[in-house]
């Protein structure tokens, strides 16, 4: 693959966003802009209906992929960050207490910081040094005091650790609490059945493991869960004369013109993943294990997170006692055309948990489209840089 400047790029930053996008996704985005370019839900002429059907069908494809029986329970939003803000600010009030894992991304911790200033009580449950949150620790925290919600990611964007969401759901519900999940690194990289997971809210990125365009995401809300919307405004449908926001799903959470091209692309991606997801995930996991084993075997490298034989989404971070993470990332890019990300990955809590808050780390994220040659090149390049 090549970047815009014509250089060859081995893209290993799927934890940030997937690239390249499947051709079907790009074609759907282009079609939405060239053939279905009207405003969905804002008219009943041919092209407006075509745009409306694009959104309707994309929602249905995503519901099928994610195990959601009624697609109205999936709201399109601008991305996982908006979804996290919506579920937190729409459900939590001053005086509520929440139990939250120490591995959360800023998409969770920053809204919580704001809510805490208004009186939200936050208890943090520490993950282990690999970044895994243990259900028993969550249970102890939930038992300690009345809890409105447990907040836990599905997988870590730093170590790739997969959290025991189904167990945490049982614990939360047993104690009358909600389970709110940041699924940014889960959907697509993991087979996600939201009904089986029994979560109350699940925030989804459209452009990472789901392979859609940037600028679109989803929030799943359990049927009947009353979450106050972040925004009010036009929804296109009936009852325009009402001054209050419609309370029906999905329009309650979709004020304003939606990102139709993004939704179209995400819908196309969902159809691809429904058909090929199992095979793609198996390939991804095989390559990721090879990458992790290869990097772990290098002298002077410490790979953070679960061992290669333990479950993980295909992202890992490493540090070296020979070179700072930013230097490693820079040399990988400039000398080898390998795209990785250094720093704190918008997750200072996670880096504090695993002991890298002072240095950061270099993250390698695999995804659809990566090859064995990419993995071998990455391991070889890191070995050379640190030799």
């Amino acid at each position: 693959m090549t970047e815009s400047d014509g250089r060859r790029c081995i893209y290993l930053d799927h934890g940030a966003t997937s690239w390249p996008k499947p051709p079907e996704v790009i074609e759907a985005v282009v079609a939405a802009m060239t053939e279905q370019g009207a405003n969905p839900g804002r008219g009943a002429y041919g092209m407006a209906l075509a745009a409306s059907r694009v959104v309707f069908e994309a929602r249905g494809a995503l519901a099928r992929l994610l195990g959601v029986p009624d697609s109205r329970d999936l709201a399109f939003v601008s991305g996982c960050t908006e979804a996290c803000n919506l579920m937190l600010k729409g459900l939590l009030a001053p005086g509520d207490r929440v139990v939250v894992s120490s591995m959360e991304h800023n998409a969770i911790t920053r809204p919580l910081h704001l809510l805490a200033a208004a009186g939200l009580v936050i208890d943090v449950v520490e993950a282990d040094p690999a970044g895994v949150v243990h259900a028993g620790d969550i249970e102890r925290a939930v038992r300690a005091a009345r809890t409105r919600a447990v907040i836990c990611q599905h997988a870590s964007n730093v170590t790739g650790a997969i959290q025991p969401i189904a167990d945490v759901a049982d614990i939360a519900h047993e104690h009358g609490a909600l389970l709110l999940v940041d699924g940014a690194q889960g959907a697509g990289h993991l087979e996600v059945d939201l009904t089986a997971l029994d979560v109350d809210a699940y925030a989804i990125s459209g452009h990472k493991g789901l392979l859609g365009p940037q600028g679109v995401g989803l929030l799943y809300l359990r049927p009947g869960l009353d979450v106050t919307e972040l925004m009010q405004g036009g929804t296109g449908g009936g009852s325009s004369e009402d001054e209050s926001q419609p309370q029906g799903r999905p329009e309650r959470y979709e004020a304003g013109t939606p990102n139709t091209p993004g939704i179209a692309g995400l819908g196309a991606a969902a159809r691809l993943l429904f058909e090929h997801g199992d095979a793609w995930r198996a390939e991804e996991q095989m390559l990721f294990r090879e990458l992790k084993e290869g990097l772990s075997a290098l002298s002077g490298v410490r790979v953070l997170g679960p061992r290669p034989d333990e479950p993980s989404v295909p992202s890992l971070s490493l540090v070296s006692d020979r070179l700072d993470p930013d230097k490693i990332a820079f040399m990988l890019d400039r000398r080898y055309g390998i795209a990785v990300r250094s720093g704190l990955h918008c997750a200072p809590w996670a880096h504090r948990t695993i002991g890298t808050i002072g240095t950061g780390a270099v993250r390698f994220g695999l995804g659809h489209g990566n090859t064995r040659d990419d993995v071998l090149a990455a391991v070889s390049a890191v070995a050379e840089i640190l030799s």
Partner: protein
Amino acid sequence: MTAEPRRFVVYGFASVHDALGAESALRDAGLAVTAIPSPRELGELCGVALRMDPALASAAEVVFASAGTTPRATAQIDDL
């Protein structure tokens, strides 16, 4: 040449999503349906309504029930 108005049954829904869901279910059932701008007879001036031959109304209601898409309003209109 101007066509003579005909009588139709029209259905209004809580949202465009619901209207399109109902349209899809009706088409899957082999029933002819046309999406139209919501007429004032439905009590709302925005959104999408579904227009059908009144002779299909009974069959449509069976489809709505099985699809879980209950119309919010129903009316008869004369339309072209």
